[in-house]
């Protein structure tokens, strides 16, 4: 990939992210100031634990990743607890480890595995 290609990709991605952020902010404001819908996508063992590939979870605006993880464990028990302990949680496509990080409208849950 040439540097100019990379620059085009990065610029497009930045524009896209900015547009998405604006869309997300608008949707939340229009819906309600106190609650937000979080679209959670589950992959591999996370989907097994949840029994579905994705769902909308209604949370208080400003809820944190820690609160989402607790909610998932409460809903789905030990199998999900294992996923919560070892899996990656991506908020708006960026992995977040800080439990105080605010969740947004999209969270992806991806467990690692190393089989080859």
């Amino acid at each position, binding site marked *: 990939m040439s540097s100019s290609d990379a620059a085009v990709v990065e610029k497009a991605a930045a524009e896209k992210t900015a547009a998405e952020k604006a869309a997300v902010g608008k949707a939340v404001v229009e819906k309600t100031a106190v609650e937000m819908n979080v679209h959670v996508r589950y*992959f591999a063992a996370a989907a097994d634990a949840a029994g579905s590939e994705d769902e909308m979870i209604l949370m208080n605006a400003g809820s944190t990743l820690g609160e989402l993880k607790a909610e998932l464990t409460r809903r789905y028990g030990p199998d999900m607890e294992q996923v919560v302990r070892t899996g990656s949680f991506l908020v708006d*496509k960026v992995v977040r480890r800080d439990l105080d990080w605010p969740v947004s409208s999209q969270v992806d849950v991806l467990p690692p595995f190393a089989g080859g």
Partner: protein
Amino acid sequence: MTTPRMPHTGHSAPLVAAGPPLTPERLARFSRQLLMPGFGEIAQRRLANARVLVVGAGGLGSASVPYLAAAGVGTIGVIDSDVVEPSNLHRQVAHGMRDIGRSKVDSIADTVAAIDPNVRFHRHDLRLDSHNARDLLDGYDLVMDGSDNFPTRYLTNDAAALAHKPLVWGAILRYSGQASVSWADHGPTYRDLFPSPPGPDEILNCADGGVLPTVCAVIGAIMCGEAIKIITGIGDLLIGRVTTYDALSGRYRELEYGRDPDAAPITELIDYELFCSGSAPHTAHDDAADRADGADDTIDVQTLSRHLANRSPIQLVDVRELFEAKIVCLPDAEVIPLGALVGSLDRIRTDVPVVVYCHHGTRSRMALDLLQSRGFSNVRHLDGGVDAYATLVDPALTRY
């Protein structure tokens, strides 16, 4: 929900320069891919000039190395220190019955030679480590990781990043697979997706969790496809995206990821066994404390064999699947598969010490955690499982 397609980046720059012109025989051999729009003779000469290093000759290596050879990659190196075992054959289709007991790199070298004897094949019958990684990667343009453990995956990622080389990685377990391209100079890496490794006993491997053979085929083929695209400069690469495959639903789903803003820069190779051991570097005092702690809930095979010989009152609980107990089982063990354990707690005795075991010690560690969380205190798990027992105590037992 639809995911908007990333803007088409057009043709990324090819990784490898074109080699010398091809003979008519070679042109005929590759004619079916030379015909494709956007491919052509120059792309084929780039493949012929390319040097690809594949880490692991297991399920993913079996599904990618033969395709690399068939597609015309000129130089292929494979790293693996294992020998072929009967339990590999359901998914590692580059090996056959006659290869049992042979080194996997020798076996897959024969597979490659049968496809195309013109391929320059390098056998690396060793385990990739922090000391040999730099020199090994030096001789190649691109790395593919189909290894079977986390320390190797983080090592391969870091070594490729430091060498400014693209890494195509894939991973499989049960009915699921993942694949992506990690290329530090152009986008996020494996560490941006998985910043911290799970503890050594927290995630099942294929030996303990099982794997559908066709998942290897799917993910290995995706990996090989990305390698061909990187070498020849065609298409959009799986950079900043991971493709996931679920064989049960038959669905592929994609997940985009950016750089981890909290990630420390990769500056050197580290001790990856330690990194993935679940404990940060610590003092000798901590080590002693760990050993003392570990002694409380782990039992080694020699100690267990003495207990069995003395007919000590213990309850042996086998948490493997029922079919595994038919292959080999310790005497008087009660079989309660791990998945059924939480519903069978009334079968766990509290009047005698309990020892849980499995194949290698991963599932029994999970069973131990579960039982301890439910208040069972007099429980230990067998370090190394029935496989260690067969290896170190009773060679008459079947290994699988």
